[in-house]
């Protein structure tokens, strides 16, 4: 075991650092949705042109074809350089793209992957429904096969970026009378197609970042089904396992910056003199260090065996809860200024309120604990 990087990896790190130093935009990512979209697209294009988009994606589709270690180095340096959040490109780059790489046909990959990497196509996710949250297999949105098309009716909810997206990863029921995990398909849905209605949902922080999506006889070519009709559950799980594995590296680096900033803030205000605060800051600093160690262990496992170990679900759960503790501490350190929070404020209170998503989206903390208990410890399945 060792924590050193090879001379080639160190050289790569220096290249990342140099480019980021020269290119990270001085202005902040705008909060207004339309301005944010333009900002995200322009930044993604700049990353692509310089060869930093899709570092571990196949070269045939615009990636660099490098290993996951280089990807980790890039994400570490990216966060250290305070480069902007990937924003509306999140789903395409982190979920949709990787799912297509694993499951899609050559035609589907050749069309979509370069567009995702260049920031030309924005993606959103269409998994959850009002009646299918933690119980995702309860999906009711239907796709009736008519000739070479699916005719879709139903609704999806909690869809981030729905209002700006061009494409959606849509999981729907394509076999009449099918139950649970069977009879589902994973399709690429054109978000500009007739019959789609988007109802934005305001979060308790004031931001309008997700939406409910309604489908009224929306027509999707059968050629847009990924991984074959009826195979949607397996395709969806490949996305979710990616989410639970290597998709959160940048967040982890950010947490190490956040704890350093919190300690500095507490020193500045004198609040570090409160033993309770000092002790929780010390605790979180140790936990952030352990999180990096755990991520490195997981990456090492991927390098050694080709896939993340079962402990990836532990990382997911631990990161999300640690992030929430950090956000809560940031609010505590604000003191009575927290009283002044108003809808839409981009401050620690806003982060804290939005941060509740971390233990809900993509599998709740309770579902993660089920997975850990069942897959890691071999306890009987409760569901």
């Amino acid at each position: 075991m060792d924590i050193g990087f090879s001379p080639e990896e160190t050289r790569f790190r220096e290249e990342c650092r140099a480019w980021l130093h020269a290119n990270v935009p001085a202005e902040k990512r705008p909060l207004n949705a339309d301005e944010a979209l333009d900002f995200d697209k322009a930044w993604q294009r700049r990353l692509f042109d310089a060869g930093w988009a899709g570092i571990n994606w196949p070269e045939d589709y615009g990636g660099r074809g490098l290993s996951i270690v280089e990807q980790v180095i890039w994400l570490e340096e990216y966060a250290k350089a305070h480069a902007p959040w990937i924003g509306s490109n999140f789903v395409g780059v982190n979920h949709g793209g990787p799912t297509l790489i694993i499951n899609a046909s050559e035609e589907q990959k050749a069309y979509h992957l370069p567009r995702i990497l260049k920031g030309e196509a924005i993606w959103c996710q269409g998994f959850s429904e009002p009646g299918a949250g933690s119980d995702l297999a309860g999906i009711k949105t239907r796709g009736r096969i008519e000739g070479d098309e699916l005719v879709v009716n139903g609704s999806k909810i909690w869809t981030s970026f729905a209002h700006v997206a061009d494409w959606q990863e849509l999981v729907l029921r394509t076999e009449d009378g099918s139950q649970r995990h069977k009879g589902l398909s994973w399709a690429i849905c054109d978000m500009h197609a007739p019959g789609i209605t988007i109802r934005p949902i305001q979060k308790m922080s004031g931001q309008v970042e997700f939406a409910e999506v309604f489908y009224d006889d929306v027509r999707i070519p059968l050629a847009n089904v990924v991984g074959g009709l009826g195979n949607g559950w397996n395709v969806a799980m490949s996305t979710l396992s990616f989410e639970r594995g290597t998709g959160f590296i940048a967040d982890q680096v950010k947490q190490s910056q956040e704890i350093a900033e919190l300690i500095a803030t507490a020193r500045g205000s004198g609040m570090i003199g409160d033993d309770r605060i000092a002790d929780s800051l010390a605790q979180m600093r140790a936990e952030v260090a352990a999180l990096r160690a755990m991520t490195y262990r997981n990456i090492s496992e991927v390098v050694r065996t080709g896939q993340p170990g079962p402990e990836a679900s532990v990382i997911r759960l631990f990161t999300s809860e640690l992030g929430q503790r950090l956000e809560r501490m940031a609010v505590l350190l604000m003191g009575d200024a927290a009283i002044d929070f108003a809808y839409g404020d981009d401050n620690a209170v806003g982060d804290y309120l939005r941060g509740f998503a971390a233990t809900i989206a993509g599998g709740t903390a309770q579902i993660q604990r089920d997975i850990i208990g069942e897959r890691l410890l071999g306890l009987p399945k409760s569901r």
Partner: protein
Amino acid sequence: MDLTPNDEQLALQTATADWCRDNMPLEAARSRRAGLWQDLEAMGWSAMTAPGMDLDHATEALVFAELGRFLAPMGLISTAAANRWFAGSFEGKAGLALPVTGSDAMRILDPVEAGTAVMWSAQSVALYAAPDDQPHRPTIDLSTLQGRQPSTSPVAVSNAPTSPLHLQLLSAAYAVGCADAARDMAADYARLREQFDRPIGWFQALKHICSDMAVRAAVARSQLYYAACALDAKDGEAAFHVAAAKRLADQAAIDNGRANIQVHGGIGMTDEAAPHLCLKRAHLLQFIAPADAALLLEDAA
């Protein structure tokens, strides 16, 4: 960068666990058999990083986590430190010396057949004469006896910056093993014990207690590996990483020890059952080379 054990380390880890299972079962920790110490020495575990051994901290930490899983004698930690830092002036077994708060006496943990004892401080490790001629008293940890003697001057002191970190790392490894043992004991029981006509591990209320034990153990073990590698690499932040490892390992050991008793229910509270052995070891370990919270805040500047 590679934070997974290599094939050689994996083999050593497995061999250690196998040996412990056959020769030093956890359930027998309350009264260890005669001759165990000599066997442990013969296996080489008391001198893995002694001069001329050519083994790294990562390998030593991996093996000590396995030993800790079976609640191996506390004297292994101090003897490994003595063999490494006082080579030439030391041989045999060293107990683990701790000051007694409010008195000028010191405790010697695991004094049986020892002639010396090692005391840890944040700056150094020191070797004391500690002949095994005092009456033995129990400690909270049923597997560890103690002697008392007046404080004296050390016969040797190591001020090498790595020496306190080494002992802290080994005690963190013991705590990681202890946390693993409690996790596995709880999960085994939750698969077996039935109530309401099904294994209690079926119920989320119990399953999630076990999952949290797995999280704590994974977090502590990961940081242990990183800290050991940082020490091997002479990393400037090694002291921070070892302290973080010790803090998280102590917490995992105590919290998992407590959770294990809860999962076991009534039987978990009995002297007859094994869960309290892990909990009591955890409470002892938190006094060995404890992590300094100020150090965890310091490096952030």
